[in-house]
């Protein structure tokens, strides 16, 4: 006989928790320190800011696609994690204000935004950039950011709201609404994320182009999303929360996805590299060439080893995915190298002579990270930590290991 599993844990994140406050504090200190940096070295400030902004936006975006895919495939494996993802997506519309500094720094960050490049006949004239100016111009850039965040913000807000509504009303029919939002949502997501990747990172070098860059941008973010989930669950368990609800078998699934998207990342990153390396066309190869000299190459080799080889070989083993120490270690490793890879993509534009690292990279990371996770926990504690009336929850809770 099937027996209904029941949730024995409390579903409420402690309301008096000081975590959001502490995180906001870290965020404020980090951001203020970084703003001081602006007056010392504006270029460095904006590049540091962009790297961290991309890092945290990528987490929210990955959470969004994970929620939508989960709905559309009618999955049960991740119901217990869905509210965590939803709490990220619900904040995207607030997070949008953090794109504003990039708009202010557009001249520091993006070479193409300099109008003198477009003036024919002058010394500065750049034929290629001028050809791209219908797309790469400041006005359209700003409009695009508004469009991206409007779409992501709406999707994230709606998916969270309806899911919470299902907690309260017990109305399973809402799962059909969630699917109705997710289906076109995924399509919009694909295009907006690809273009956001072009805008934020690829256009830093306005001469370079890669058709795959949108997919690559998605792949790096999505790989790094699973470590975030794993570490959040470990944190909750450490606080004694949901220890009986989110069991080892559920965490195993996170490990499996982590493994799968490690392979996916390697596949996409390698394909992009191989095609450009092999054809060796000057307009494409130069981008990699600059990123394989002056110390930058170590970040590339670091990605190969610590972002693919090590996690791949370690997580290949089933037992490793059940071991908290190993899973946690791999998660931390990949998050560090994820930051390094975004850094490797963006920073050589500013430091084309060699590797450089600034204290602002750290303060911007802490500042934005503090705010990002502060927002997350503020959202997370307002609702139950599990979508407790989800139609698939029972399947998820009664999950056991397959062979």
């Amino acid at each position: 006989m099937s027996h209904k599993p029941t949730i024995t844990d409390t579903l409420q994140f402690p309301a008096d928790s000081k975590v959001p406050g502490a995180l906001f504090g870290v965020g404020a200190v980090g951001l203020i320190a970084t703003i001081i940096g602006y007056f010392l070295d504006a270029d460095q400030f904006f590049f540091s800011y962009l790297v961290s902004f991309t890092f945290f936006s990528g987490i929210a975006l990955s959470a969004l696609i994970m929620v939508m895919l989960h709905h559309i495939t009618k999955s049960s494996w991740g119901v217990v994690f869905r509210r965590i993802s939803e709490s990220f997506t619900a904040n995207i519309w607030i997070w949008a204000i953090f794109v504003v500094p990039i708009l202010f720094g557009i001249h520091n960050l993006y070479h193409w935004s300099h109008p003198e490049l477009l003036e024919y006949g002058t010394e500065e004239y750049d034929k290629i950039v001028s050809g791209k100016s219908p797309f790469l111009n400041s006005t359209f850039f700003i409009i695009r950011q508004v469009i991206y965040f409007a779409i992501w913000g709406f999707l994230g807000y709606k998916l969270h709201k309806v899911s919470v509504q299902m907690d309260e009303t017990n109305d399973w029919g809402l799962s059909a609404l969630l699917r109705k939002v997710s289906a076109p949502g995924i399509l919009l997501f694909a295009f907006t994320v690809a273009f956001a990747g072009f805008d934020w990172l690829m256009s830093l070098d306005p001469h370079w182009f890669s058709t795959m860059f949108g997919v690559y941008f998605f792949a790096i973010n999505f790989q790094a999303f699973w470590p975030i989930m794993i570490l959040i669950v470990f944190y909750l368990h450490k606080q004694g929360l949901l220890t009986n609800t989110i069991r080892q078998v559920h965490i195993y699934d996170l490990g499996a996805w982590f493994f799968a998207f490690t392979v996916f990342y390697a596949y996409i990153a390698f394909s992009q590299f191989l095609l450009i390396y092999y054809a060796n066309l000057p307009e494409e190869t130069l981008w990699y060439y600059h990123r394989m000299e002056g110390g930058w190459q170590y970040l590339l080799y670091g990605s190969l080893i610590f972002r693919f080889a090590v996690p791949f070989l370690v997580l290949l083993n089933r037992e490793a995915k059940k071991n908290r120490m190993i899973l946690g270690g791999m998660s931390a490793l990949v998050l560090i190298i994820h930051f390094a890879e975004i850094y490797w993509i963006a920073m050589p534009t500013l430091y084309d002579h060699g590797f450089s690292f600034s204290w602002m990279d750290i303060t911007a990371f802490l500042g934005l990270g503090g705010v990002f996770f502060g927002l997350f926990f503020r959202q997370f504690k307002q609702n139950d930590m599990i979508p407790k009336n989800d139609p698939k929850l029972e399947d998820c809770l009664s999950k056991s290991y397959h062979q």
Partner: protein
Amino acid sequence: MSKYQYVPEPALVKGDHDFSSLTRLVTDINLRETPKAWYLAMMGANALLMLMVVAIGYLIWEGTGIWGLNNPVGWGWAIINFVWWVGIGHAGTLISAILFLFRQDWRTAINRFAEAMTIFAVMCAGVFPAIHVGRIWVVYWMFPIPNQMAMWPNFNSPLLWDVFAVSTYFTVSLLFWYVGLVPDLATIRDRATDKIRKVAYGIFSLGWTGSNRHWWNYEKAYMILAGLATPLVLSVHTIVSFDFAVSMIPGWHTTIFPPYFVAGAIFSGFAMVLTLMIVARKIYGMKDIMTDDHMEKMNIVILVTGSMVGFAYIMEFFIAWYSGVEYEKAIFMLRATGPYAWAYWAMMTCNVFSPQFFWSKKLRRSVGFTFFISIVVNIGMWFERFVITVTSLANDYLPSSWDYYSPTIWDVMTYVGTFGLFFTMFLLFLRFLPMIALAEVKAVIPLADPHNYDEETNEYVAPKVEVPEPQSEKV
């Protein structure tokens, strides 16, 4: 209360089936006498096969000059057909491996069928690289075999990667298929009454007993094979895309090719499975196992992969403009407006627009419409390869060397002939092998789960989903 209705998951197998009725439904086809219609169909398929044999025979006799290849277009229908067939051959392993890892139990209804299709499609694909070399008697140069010239193959060549990828893919798919077949062959062995069947199925079922000690290793092997086949299936079409993408030809050298080719392959493969499935389930009365729900799910896969292909087309077009490279820009404009615009728009219509109909649930569940779209998709995917191969070659860097490419009757005969090979193999499969993965279907029906039996009486109790009564929203 909301206006949305919760629809519980439909049962995987329709009708009131138990284990034994499923066994009969599937294996009776192999045990009964050969129907006359089968012979008729076989004759048709064989006639087409002969066409291929003749076309290839003349090719070997006369050389590749009989094809429509001309000076800029040195790669014509042979590569198009190769990529097309290999693409179709992706659905089977995808269904058996990736959907297995995703625990999508609905795959059991179609995986055997789709895997068979995969193997035969890869056979058809393999014909082209073998014959297109011109001097077929030295085809062994493709392999690293010691020879009197002391020469080795060029491991930096994507065409050699293809040799390894396609042969590995064929071998692994065949093994995967065979492993799945063993328990079902044992079922036929045990039901067979005549000597020939007993011996033949007995040999190929290797003495399988259904021991749970064996099942234990078997499931592990299946799991590992699925884990191996998943990256393999992605790698094969990736490597096929490398054939084009590592070159410098405008329109070929674009980094999105690997995932884009893979999405296209899945797209066409699913369409082909649907085409065959809709016919086969009608003829063989398999509607209880291959249900409309399966068809709907596959249509969703078609919609998703079709949109992915559309995404790639748009990215290619955008980046061609964005790159600022004149040749890139020119080739994409030429594709849409040049001498092959008819092929380009055929591709766009069939691949990008036609699957969008599947946003409608009603059309997803319409058998006739699905059948129609499944064929349209495969026409579109053929044109995609045509557009990629021919437009880029026919209009390359130097306008003075441009030339229009058209195939000859021999190109057409070879291509049509491969359908003969495909259908001959497929008919043999339908006749002699169980077309449904019987053991796997049995394992996913509710009767198979020990939890669905009463603790005391050991009687079967059908599982029920209780949909809760929605409460009015409290504010």
